[in-house]
C-alpha cells in the first residue's frame, strides 16, 4: 500500500475517537478534511475505517501481535502507543497529527496537540497526582513534537507559560465545525415533535461534568421566572462522566431546577442521536454555553457554523471564538445570564432559518480552508529533521528458534530508518534458519554456518557492519520500543559508549525486575561487569580502536571488551530501559 504523491509529504491524521474520545474524534475528522480540502496528501489512521469520511484514504490500525502474553513487557513498553506509530510507518507517513501521545521520533515527525490546560485553571477538579501526570505527559509531548498546535490563543498562552523551553514550537490553528464538510440537512428533523419541545427554546449541549457548569442555567431561569419571564431550556448531553463518580453535576442541576421551581421549563434530554442533536441546533433560538473552562468548544463552533445565536460564559477563549455572541456572563453569575436572556429573548427570531444557515455555512467553509492552510504551513515549518546515525545490530544465534522471531521483530519493529541488521547463526539444527528466512528482505546480511562460539559469530557480524553505532542483541533478548531512537539521541553528545537499564525477566513469567546499573566508575568496572550487554551501544570508531572480541574467551568476552573500551573511550550511563534480558533454562 503506497500513498506517496510526488513532492508532497504524506500526512497521517490520527483518529482520536479510537480511544473513545468523541470530541477528539471530531477534531481529527475536521483536521483531515480541512487538509484534504486544500490539496494536502492526507491519510486517516483509524481502527475503524468504516466510520471515516468517504473522501479520505484510510489506514486500518490494529493491535500489535508480537510478544503476546508477556504482560510485564507490555506494562513497561507503552505498547498501545506504538500501534499508531507502526501503522503510520507502514503506510509511509511522513508526519503524524494530532499527536496526543508523544509519538514523535527522529524518524517520524509528529505535530502535538494539547486541547487545553484545564488542570491549571480548574485545579480543584484534579488530584495532585493527576496534575503531575498531565504536566509530565504534556512536557514529553512538547519535547518530542516537531510543532505544537493549539486551538486558541488562550491555550497557547498557557503552554508558553508552562513550557517556555518549547515556546518556539507553538502555533495556533482554531478548528472549524464538521458542518463545513458535512452540512446539516436542509429539511430539519422534527425534533420538537419527537421530544415534545416548545416552539422557542434555548439550548445547552454539554456532557454533564462539573466544569460544564449547567447549574447556572436553571438558576438564571428562576431569576427570570421571578421577574415574570418563563424561558424554556433544552439540555442535551451524556448525563454522566467517569470523572464525576457521584454524578454531582447532574444532581446540582436537577436540584437548582427544583429549588427555583423551573422544572416545567427544563427539558433534560440526556444523550440524543447525532441527527437529533443537529436538529436541536437548527431549531433552538440560541445556544447557551455556561462552561467554567474550555480549550475551543465544538458546540459553539457548530452553532456558529449554522448561524445559531450564542450566549457564553465570560472566558477569554469564548471571546476569541465567538466575538459576535449575544452576551458574555461570569460563569457563576446566574443574574448576569438572566439579564442577557431577558434582554435578547423577546427579539430572538424563530428557527430554523435556512437563509441564515446557508450564509453561515459558507463562512465556515472559508474558515475551514484557512484552517487547512494554516495547519499545512505549520507542517512545512516543522519539516526540518535531524539525520539519523546508522545503527548496526548484530544478532548471534544458535538453536534459539523459539525466541529468535521475537528478537528479530523487536529490532525491525523499532521502525528506525537507518538500521543495518545482521544475523549470524551458528548452523542451528532447529527452525532458526527458517525464521531468519522469513525476514531476510529486511536484513543486511545473514548466514547459518558452524562457528567456534559466540564471540567468533559476533566478530563475523561486526566485520560486515557499516553502521556509525554498533551493538549486539542475543537471540533470546529483545529491544524495547523506542530504544534505537533514544540511542541516536544519546549519541548527539560526545560519548563513545553508552549503557542503559535493562528489564530482566524469567522465561516463565514469574519474575521481572529492572536492572539499573550505576554511573560509570572505572575502578568498579575493573572489579565487576556492571554493564548490561543488551543495553550497550558504542561508536564504530571505538570498535576500530579496541579491535574485535577476544575469541579465546567464551563467557566473559563482553566484560573483557568493555574493559578495553574503557581505556580508550568515554563511557556513560543512559537512564533508559533499552532492552529486555531473558532468564531461561535453554
Amino acid at each position, binding site marked *: 500500500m503506497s500513498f506517496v504523491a510526488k513532492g508532497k509529504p504524506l500526512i497521517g491524521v490520527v483518529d482520536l475517537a479510537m480511544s473513545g474520545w468523541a470530541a477528539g474524534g471530531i477534531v481529527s475528522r475536521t483536521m483531515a478534511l480541512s487538509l484534504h480540502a486544500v490539496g494536502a496528501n492526507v491519510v486517516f489512521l483509524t481502527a475503524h475505517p468504516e466510520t471515516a469520511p468517504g473522501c479520505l484514504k484510510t489506514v486500518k490500525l490494529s493491535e500489535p501481535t508480537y510478544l503476546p502474553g508477556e504482560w510485564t513487557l507490555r506494562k513497561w513498553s507503552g505498547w498501545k502507543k506504538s500501534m499508531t506509530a507502526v501503522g503510520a510507518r507502514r503506510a509511509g507517513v511522513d508526519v503524524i497529527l494530532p499527536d496526543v501521545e508523544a509519538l514523535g521520533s527522529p524518524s517520524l515527525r509528529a505535530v502535538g496537540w494539547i486541547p487545553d490546560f484545564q488542570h491549571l485553571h480548574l485545579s480543584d477538579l484534579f488530584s495532585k497526582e493527576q496534575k503531575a501526570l498531565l504536566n509530565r505527559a504534556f512536557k514529553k509531548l512538547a519535547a518530542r513534537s516537531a510543532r505544537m498546535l493549539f486551538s486558541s490563543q488562550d491555550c497557547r498562552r498557557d503552554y508558553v507559560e508552562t513550557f517556555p523551553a518549547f515556546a518556539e514550537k507553538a502555533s495556533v490553528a482554531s478548528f472549524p465545525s464538521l458542518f463545513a464538510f458535512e452540512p446539516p440537512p436542509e429539511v430539519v428533523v422534527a425534533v420538537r415533535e419527537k421530544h415534545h419541545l416548545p416552539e422557542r427554546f434555548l439550548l445547552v449541549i454539554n456532557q454533564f461534568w462539573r466544569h460544564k457548569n449547567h447549574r447556572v442555567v436553571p438558576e438564571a431561569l428562576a431569576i427570570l421566572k421571578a421577574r415574570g419571564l418563563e424561558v424554556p431550556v433544552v439540555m442535551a448531553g451524556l448525563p454522566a462522566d467517569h470523572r464525576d463518580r457521584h454524578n454531582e453535576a447532574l444532581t446540582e442541576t436537577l436540584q437548582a431546577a427544583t429549588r427555583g421551581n423551573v422544572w416545567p421549563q427544563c427539558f433534560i434530554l440526556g444523550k440524543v442521536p447525532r441527527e437529533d442533536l443537529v436538529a436541536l441546533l437548527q431549531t433552538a433560538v440560541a445556544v447557551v454555553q455556561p462552561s467554567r473552562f474550555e480549550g475551543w468548544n465544538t458546540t459553539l463552533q457548530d452553532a456558529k457554523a449554522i448561524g445559531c445565536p450564542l450566549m457564553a460564559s465570560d472566558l477569554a477563549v469564548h471571546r476569541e471564538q465567538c466575538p459576535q455572541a449575544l452576551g458574555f456572563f461570569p460563569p457563576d453569575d446566574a443574574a448576569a445570564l438572566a439579564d442577557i436572556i431577558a434582554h435578547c429573548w423577546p427579539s430572538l427570531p424563530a428557527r430554523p432559518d435556512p437563509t441564515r444557515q446557508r450564509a453561515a455555512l459558507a463562512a465556515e467553509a472559508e474558515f475551514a480552508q484557512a484552517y487547512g492552510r494554516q495547519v499545512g504551513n505549520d507542517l512545512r515549518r516543522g519539516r526540518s529533521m535531524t539525520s539519523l546515525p546508522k545503527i548496526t545490530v548484530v544478532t548471534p544465534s544458535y538453536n534459539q528458534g523459539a525466541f529468535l522471531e521475537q528478537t528479530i521483530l523487536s529490532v525491525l519493529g523499532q521502525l528506525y530508518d537507518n538500521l543495518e541488521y545482521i544475523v549470524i547463526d551458528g548452523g542451528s539444527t532447529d527452525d532458526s534458519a527458517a525464521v531468519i528466512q522469513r525476514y531476510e528482505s529486511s536484513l543486511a546480511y545473514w548466514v547459518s554456518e558452524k562457528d567456534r562460539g559466540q564471540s567468533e559469530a559476533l566478530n563475523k557480524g561486526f566485520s560486515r557492519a557499516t553502521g556509525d553505532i554498533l551493538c549486539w542483541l542475543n*537471540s533470546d533478548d529483545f529491544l524495547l520500543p523506542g530504544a534505537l531512537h533514544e540511542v541516536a539521541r544519546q549519541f548527539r553528545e560526545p560519548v563513545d559508549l553508552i549503557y542503559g537499564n535493562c528489564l530482566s525477566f524469567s522465561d516463565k513469567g514469574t519474575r521481572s525486575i529492572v536492572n539499573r546499573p550505576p554511573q560509570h566508575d572505572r575502578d568498579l568496572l575493573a572489579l565487576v561487569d556492571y554493564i548490561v550487554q543488551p543495553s550497550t551501544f558504542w561508536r564504530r570508531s571505538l570498535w576500530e580502536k579496541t579491535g574485535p572480541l577476544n575469541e579465546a574467551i567464551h563467557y566473559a568476552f563482553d*566484560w*573483557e571488551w568493555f574493559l578495553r573500551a574503557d581505556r580508550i573511550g568515554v563511557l556513560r550511563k543512559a537512564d533508559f530501559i533499552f532492552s529486555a534480558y531473558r532468564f531461561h533454562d535453554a
Partner: protein
Amino acid sequence: MHKSSHGGQKRAQEIVAVAKTHGGEVAARHYEFAIEHIEMLKKYENLALRFKGRGLASYLQLARWATPALWKLPPGLDFEKLRQCVNMLKL
C-alpha cells in the same frame, strides 16, 4: 549460549583471567580469595538473606558475626568488593 547465569567453573576461570589481565592486582586477589573461600562466602550470603527475611535491620553485620572465618580478611582485601566478586562469579 552466552548468559551470565551459565558456565559454572569455566566461566569463573575466565573471569579471574580477565580480572588478572585488565583489572589489576587488587581485582585478581579479590577473585582468587573469593574462589578459594566460595562456600564460606555463599554461607554468609545465605545467612544475610535469612536475617533480612526476618526483618533484622543489621542483617549484614549479623551474618558477618555468624561467619567467624570472615572476621579477619588478608590485608588489602575489602569485604564489599568480595561480595561483588561472588555475585559476578555466580557459582
